[in-house]
């Protein structure tokens, strides 16, 4: 007689598809493995779009809940990383639109404490300075700069995501770069 298979058991070297399949039926080990594989990249784009830690954490959790709730809809037509990244970006942008509708005031400057890492590596310091400048950008500029110059989205793609034209995206991007450059110069003095 055929022995029933434990469908929740962890395979020895799970493929991405197996991880998704097991996470979709609630295997905790698979949920954790998917999270560990993609957390940093998703957190990066969400945190840079949010501009602050508290918002980023809320948007991050909301993004992951949407990703996990829709695993059954993942067809493998793109990589899981690409699929999840798009959900995270859409979640962050729609969350920001909700905030705007609640009339949250965008503030241009906030006191950002720069934490220099103990090893004082030049690249790590540059990253901190860049992130501090990105955080200080107005939200509209920030989202265009992050999506285009960091995440690699095209002008038309961004236009579709945020509901504007490619021409507006190009203009906003130029303003964002100029503003970021100014903020970095202020930081250098």
């Amino acid at each position, binding site marked *: 007689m055929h022995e029933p298979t434990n469908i929740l058991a962890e395979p020895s070297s799970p493929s991405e598809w197996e991880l998704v399949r097991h996470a979709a039926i609630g295997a*905790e080990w698979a949920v954790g493995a998917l999270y560990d594989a993609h957390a940093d990249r998703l957190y990066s784009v969400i945190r840079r779009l949010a501009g602050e830690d508290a918002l980023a954490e809320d948007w991050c959790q909301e993004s992951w809940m949407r990703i996990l709730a829709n695993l059954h809809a993942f067809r493998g037509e793109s990589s899981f990383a690409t699929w999840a990244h798009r959900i995270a970006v859409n979640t962050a942008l729609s969350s920001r639109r909700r905030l705007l509708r609640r009339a949250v005031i965008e503030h241009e400057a906030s006191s950002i404490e720069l934490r220099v890492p103990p090893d004082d590596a030049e690249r790590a310091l540059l990253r901190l300075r860049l992130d501090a400048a990105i955080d200080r950008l107005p939200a509209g500029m920030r989202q265009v700069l992050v999506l285009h110059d960091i995440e690699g989205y095209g002008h038309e793609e961004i236009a579709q995501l945020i509901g504007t034209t490619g021409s507006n995206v190009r203009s906003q991007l130029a303003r964002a770069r100029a503003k970021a450059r100014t903020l970095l110069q202020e930081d250098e003095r």
Partner: protein
Amino acid sequence: MIYPDNRTNPDKHIAAERLAALVDSPRTLQEERHLASCGRCNAALMRLEQLRQSLATIEPLRSPAHIRARVVAAAMHRQQEPHRRPWLGWAAAAALFVSGVLVGAVAARNAPSGNISSGDWLVTRMGDPVARVALLEAVALSARAALAQAPQDPGIRVIHERLAAERRAAAAALSNETGGVRWF
């Protein structure tokens, strides 16, 4: 286009936003000529190109550890709410159906004759026939609940239909044994 720097400065330079756009946009002939001779605009453009390069290669941030705990805990908590998780109802119904098939397979193998109806093997192998029909009714109700949560799921629909057929067969067999009494 070349813009005046300010009202008091007669020098004409490329505006900051236009320079930012030139990082990855084509330049006009006039802009090319200006950049060929203006150290200030050239230096500003170089800094913007460096910024663009830095952003393109910026390292990812590290996701805080406490977010992982929250995400996994929230995901597991959602599993405890089957009415929100159609796949949980599917998994439960599938488990019930598979266990029923396994019981039936054992019963069929041990039955005195090779060909028996699905209702027959449950009635003959599982003690009180009324209790067996009641059990099948309960299992079919579970499958129906799962189907209500995920009406488009083909897997759940198949399981529900098979369980319903098993229940009808068992009830019909019991009715025959009890002189035509209708069971469900």
